[in-house]
């Protein structure tokens, strides 16, 4: 074939030159709510994510070290931890990006109960997801063809911009309002509510809006912006919540404007009452 012969043989990568010194100091939280940091040294490598460091500690130093991961490519949102004070997905965080003077400190995410070491209990996070009304309810069934939806429609685009959430809880962990106010539903749940509210196929728009703007809802957000800043997939819950606030205010001024929009035949889905 007529392939132009490449000039260099060496792989061109963005990998850091060297992490001097060639070892990395790691402090890892061990224990549950009560616990302490333990220190380890692992070899520093060119291709090394924070998850790799944790894995190395588990494999070579601390066999019973607890942490969570699954996909290792940034789609499952299982591996998030607090790294040098910042919540991050660890499978997609290169050590060079976060190490300070050849050291990193790894803790579980904030704002969730701890199970053991680096794993925390995400149940509350997901319960709030439901409380925010972030669940689709359609009127069409599998017997019908999919609805025609104009991809350029502004509402569709608003939903599109916010939908690829991997539910990693990084935003939830970064938001101080979540720490200060137990009832606050948090950025991820409200972000999801925003996508359904913008989904023209969604039959229970009013219900979702009521849940997302009511108790614990969007009004509690003080635009700290940490969610937007730290979301690993570049979603801006801040924007989604701002959108909900706008709707909240509008529906406050123009009472029940939306109620009429919910198709009369909206399935009540009584059986779907949150368990």
């Amino acid at each position, binding site marked *: 074939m007529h392939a132009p012969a490449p000039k260099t043989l060496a*792989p061109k990568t963005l990998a850091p030159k060297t992490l001097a010194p060639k070892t990395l100091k790691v402090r890892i939280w061990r224990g549950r709510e009560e616990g302490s940091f333990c220190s380890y040294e692992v070899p520093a490598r060119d291709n090394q*994510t924070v998850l*790799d460091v944790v894995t190395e500690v588990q494999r070579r130093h601390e*066999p019973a070290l607890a942490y969570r991961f699954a996909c290792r490519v940034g789609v*499952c949102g299982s591996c998030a931890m607090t790294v040098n004070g910042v919540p991050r997905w660890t499978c997609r965080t290169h050590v060079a990006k976060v190490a300070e003077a050849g050291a990193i400190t790894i803790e579980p995410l904030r704002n969730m109960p701890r199970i053991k070491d680096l794993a925390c209990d995400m149940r509350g996070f997901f319960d709030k997801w439901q409380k925010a009304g972030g669940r689709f309810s*359609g009127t069409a069934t599998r017997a*019908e063809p999919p609805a025609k939806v104009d991809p350029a429609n502004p509402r569709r685009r608003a939903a599109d911009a916010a939908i690829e959430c991997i539910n990693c809880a990084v935003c939830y962990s970064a938001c101080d309002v979540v720490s200060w106010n137990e009832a606050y539903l948090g950025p991820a749940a409200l972000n999801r509510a925003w996508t359904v509210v913008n989904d023209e196929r969604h039959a229970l728009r009013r219900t979702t809006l009521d849940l997302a703007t009511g108790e614990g809802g969007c009004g509690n957000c003080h635009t700290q912006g940490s969610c937007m800043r730290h979301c690993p997939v570049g979603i801006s819950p801040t924007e989604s919540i701002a959108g909900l606030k706008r709707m909240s205010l509008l529906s406050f001024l123009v009472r029940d404007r939306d109620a009429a929009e919910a198709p009369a035949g909206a399935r009540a889905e009584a059986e*779907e009452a949150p368990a």
Partner: protein
Amino acid sequence: MQVERLKTDILILGSGGAGLFAALHAKKANPDLSVTVATKGLLGKCGCTRMVQGGYNVALAPGDSVERHFMDTIVGGKWLPRQDLAWQLCVTSVERIRELENELGCFFDRNPDGTLHQKAFAGQSFDRTVHKGDLTGIEIINRLMEKVWALNVGRLEEHRAIELVPAADGSGIAGVLLVDIRTGAYRLVQAKAVLLGTGAGPTMYLYHTPSGDKSCDGLALALRYGLALRDMEMVQFHPTGLLGGPDTRMTGTVLEEGLRGAGGYLLNGEGERFMAAYDAAGERATRDVVSRAIYAEMRAGRTTPMGGVYIEMAHLGPENVARRFPGMVKRCADCGFDLAGGRVEVVPTAHYMMGGVEFEMDGSTASPGLYAAGEDCGGVHGANRLGGNGVGNSTVYGGIAGDSMAAFVARQSAFRDPDESVVEAAIARAERPFALPRGDLMGLRELLWQDMWDDVGILRTAEGLRRGRQKIAGHQASLAATGLADGDRAFNLTWHDWLNLESLLSISDVIALAAEARQDSRGAHFREDFPETGELATSAYTRIRADGEALELEMVPVDFSIVRPGQSLIEETAGAPPVAAE
């Protein structure tokens, strides 16, 4: 050892497309049933359904047809699929995608006219892959997860199934023994019906794509339970897995197929493009062809520093590449690789297992009450799986199994009594490593990875396979002598690594045996000593069953129940020409 006991009408193992669809359908069929999902990670946040990038095959568009989709599946599967299963997949995919869109709220990409966008995917004669950007799996699983949370479904998250427990009287399945990963406690869940939806996952190879929680547990349990596994030699390799060295979990993860489709170059260690020497389609040849070519280059020693080949996109213009493949470029950049402007080392990587548990049209298996769906099952894809038929398989058959289990439970009013001797034996198995002196578990796993890669991998020979089986047997003996240092059972990942390795070893042996038995090359299976595809009309598939410690193999003739080799349901040739995605 204390065992906590629970009862539920339906117990579902796994929370991928198969498990969650089963839960949803069972609960819809009868809301009064108690349904419980047990899964190794968090509900919906583990397994591979979430990782689906390409999308979901379905014959929706004018000009396409179920017949065409079916013929592509059969031809792609080299006439090995069980045809009624493949047919049902193609038919029900249409209903399932509508259910996903209309009832679950999946937000698939649209054409400008508002209809579903369907893209091209390798090996198919029509553009029929429905998708949501290149993160289709997240959309599907998130919507499923939300629905299942809202139903009153029991959740045993971070619970690992370690034994399928038969009824004491042999009348079927009685329940499943699990380990609560968080506490290390044992739980026996009795159920009238059980679904096996643990997603197989060929993670016994040096390079592999699936999520870390998958280790062929379901297959190992099924084998031990006495079920037959078919087509186990059929392991699909994806040609371009990221190669980042042995100490990073990134190694093996998929770089998408579209990169080659768009005109990306594959270069060997000497910097030369080599694909033209193997196939006229060059880099755009099908997955299996490209995987074999890369492997051949590697074996010939023309490798990159880390032992693979390069993928290079820069000639298409780095900005252009970054715009067209933002997800891939960012993923590489996060981990220190410059995909848009430089070269990235890649290697073929074990991706999907076409083989698995033999099951029926309604999802049932040979044991009353035990159902199976998704990647744990064999028969739907035959010798090769079309990209986009994997998630179709798990969601279609998961839903069907859910319906069937609800109907089965309605007929079956009583719980069966578990065979307590099996429970005791299973706990003893799981406890073994704590009584043994600490060994090098990691080293053992690496040996298995390397041996499977070398001897039971992309290019196979009788001699290599025989050697492979011997080594596997040796590793099994080593594992039986390898203990764990820390006695803490709570969230002890090293214990679970041990259990994972046990499952992987048992299934590795099955793969090697099946590969030895198949003395021709077809689909994902390539025998250098039998490079030709055997006569299609007399095709047979491998069926393996455990008899105590030994494995029994049978070659079973394929029943061409719908179409015979040489015939077609449609006028033009289906499945041809197979081109890589894009």
